[in-house]
């Protein structure tokens, strides 16, 4: 038995007009939370669909939990939340969930039990109201998303694949989702999700893979990725009126390769060979009152921008959640 939940080797997917995924290899360890990061159109959804055997790769192999992803026994152990949510609108909530559970091989009585558990867990079934008897289209969007999420987990999958799970979630639901992901990990499940929201990825993921234009840019454990990127980043904050005074220093390309204004502080990337101490002295010399000067590991967002570059952000990258 392999210790990899997902083992993708040299997968290629071409469409008539373009290459969606180019020679991609991925290794997702069991029991980890894995982030698939990339701008829109990078090939994340295509990759996920190939993992799920919804579309076939042109070449390469995909193994899930040690078996081919075409093995129907494997399919039943995977939970999938697609990017575009959708359920049968005219169907009763409980019947939809039961249908999804039975598709995954859960028998009827067991499915009923689990539906009760999850409906209560997500507060869709309370003393006042049982939404399980309503039709899907009578539910609010937030509730529909909860139902969809229950549908993903109803068969207690070993591998959970979430495509852009945070898009369209309000803060409360987003928090509930994060909590659930952590719980899944604690129970030894593997979770892989795609996102372009780096903050979420940084907080949740053990490992990440960044892809852009169908190519893998980097992958590995988040800690390693950040260590490799080095402590070349300084968080600097000065009192508001002194911002103009330090502008020339930030513009000095021999010292600062990039300064990212985060409003309350600057995330500064030092130029190669530059010394953080020199930067500190120059800032002190301006007489600006320093509120914060900290050598930090770069955020995933920083790494992402640096490695993917502006070209990767062109197609509607919506920032840093």
């Amino acid at each position, binding site marked *: 038995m392999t210790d990899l939940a997902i083992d993708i080797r040299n997968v290629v997917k071409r469409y*008539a007009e373009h290459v969606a995924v180019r020679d991609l290899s991925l290794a997702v360890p069991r029991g980890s939370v894995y982030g698939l990061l990339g701008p829109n159109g990078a090939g994340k959804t295509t990759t996920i669909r190939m993992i*799920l055997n919804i579309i076939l790769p042109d070449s390469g192999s995909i193994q899930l939990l040690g078996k081919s992803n075409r093995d*129907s026994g494997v*399919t039943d152990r995977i939970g999938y939340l697609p990017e575009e949510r959708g359920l049968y*609108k005219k169907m009763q909530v409980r019947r939809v969930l039961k249908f999804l559970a039975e598709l995954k091989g859960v028998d009827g009585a067991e499915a009923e039990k689990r539906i009760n558990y999850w409906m209560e867990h997500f507060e869709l079934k309370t003393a006042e109201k049982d939404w399980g008897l309503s039709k899907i289209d009578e539910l609010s969007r937030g509730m529909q998303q909860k139902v969809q999420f229950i549908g993903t987990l109803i068969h207690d999958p070993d591998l959970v694949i979430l495509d852009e799970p945070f898009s369209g979630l309000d803060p409360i639901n987003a928090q509930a989702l994060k909590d659930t992901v952590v719980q899944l990990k604690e129970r030894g499940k593997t979770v892989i999700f795609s996102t372009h929201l780096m903050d979420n990825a940084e907080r949740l993921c053990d490992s990440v893979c960044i892809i852009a234009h169908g190519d893998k840019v980097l992958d590995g454990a988040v800690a390693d990725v950040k260590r490799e990127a080095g402590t070349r980043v300084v968080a600097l904050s000065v009192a508001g009126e002194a911002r103009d005074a330090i502008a020339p220093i930030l513009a000095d390309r021999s010292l600062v390769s990039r300064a990212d204004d985060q409003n309350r502080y600057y995330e500064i990337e030092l130029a190669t060979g530059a010394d953080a101490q020199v930067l500190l002295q120059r800032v002190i010399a301006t007489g600006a009152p320093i509120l914060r000067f900290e050598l930090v590991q770069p955020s995933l967002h920083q790494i992402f921008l640096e490695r993917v570059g502006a070209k990767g952000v062109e197609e509607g990258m919506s920032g840093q959640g």
Partner: protein
Amino acid sequence: MRKLGVVFKREYLERVRSKWFLVGTLLGPLFFAMITVVPTWISMRQRPGNDLTNIVILDATGTGLGARVSKILGTRYPSVPAPEAKTLSPERLSVAEDSAVNAVVRKEINGFFVLDSNTVANRYVRYVGRNAGSISDVDALMSTVRQQVLAQRLEREGLDAARVTALTGDRLETRKERIGDKGREKGGGLGNLAFAYLVAFLLYFMIVLYGQQILRGVMEEKTTRVAEVVVSSVSTDTLLAGKVLGVGLVAVTQVVSWVGLSLGMLFYLAPILFGKMAPEAGAAAAAARGLPTDAITAALPTLGTSGIIFAYFVLGFIFYASLFAAVGAMVSSQEDVQQASMPVMLMLISSVIFMGPILTNPGSPLARIMSLIPFSAPILMPLRMSLIGVPWYELTISLGGVALACVAAIWISARIYRVGLLMYGKRPSFKELARWVRYAG
């Protein structure tokens, strides 16, 4: 196989549970009763009515032919007064005709017969009237006139008048009997015609109705994006098969309920409708009133025939349903449905267009060809074989062709379905469709 069952169960139960299924199942027999019983009932009331015999006979023969015709029509339709026979000389005929035309215009009468020397010479009879275009009306009147002209000629040849009446008075009717491959079969009458029509119409109706349900179901799965969740658990082939079989069984359930309810209505309601009597007496009364009960039972098919009709339904449904499913997978919006389903609808409609000609002439080359073409055979062959005996080799070729077409339709549709289900946006061109079919290996 288990997953097929799950998909099948959902498709079946969700549809059977719906309000519309219940309404359709309950109202169906009423609807069919409306379109079959009501016209029969109306025509039964109407046939001996004054419509037909509210005419005038202008007799310029000088032989009393007009009076004879009038008398016979009077006895044949006793509920209304016999038509008036005016005896006149040939010279006054044109004047009388003018005034009769005026009477028709004023709607006092429906029309008039002109009997003159040409009639006596066995050449022609003229009928002038509002219903001159109605073949059945004129035929009914003409048979009486013809009979009386013959009777008169026989009398003139010296036969005794009473004997002539006795000899010519019988009305001969045709009792048809069909011969099939195994010899004599029951049926062949009017009941057969009605049954054949009903079967063909029902096949067409169910295929259109439930084929479109499949189309809408696929489109719903596609546009609501449920499809993606489902196909991550089952293969598209299984999904398609479960859908077609599930909806197919809904159609069968509906027809069986209809037949059951209709039979129930026939046994319990017919006596109430046709006289408040016990069922047996009601049937007798219905027969007495000319309801073709014999014909109805005679028209009911044998077990073998029913089996073949059912086979046509199953194959025809699978053929059209998988095509409709492919159309559903092709389109992303309601606006595209009409156009995209046009080719499939054309095949169905072209079958229906030929229902009339085949009904009147089920043995014609047209009927034979149309009942062999795979896309029209499922509707037209059951129609044809309800009317006449179809040789077994034609049946075999026809059924085999439909089965082959079925396999081809499933093969193509499954491929279009597989690709189309996750493709959003513009409706594909034929070129793109061809590529889908090729590359969805």
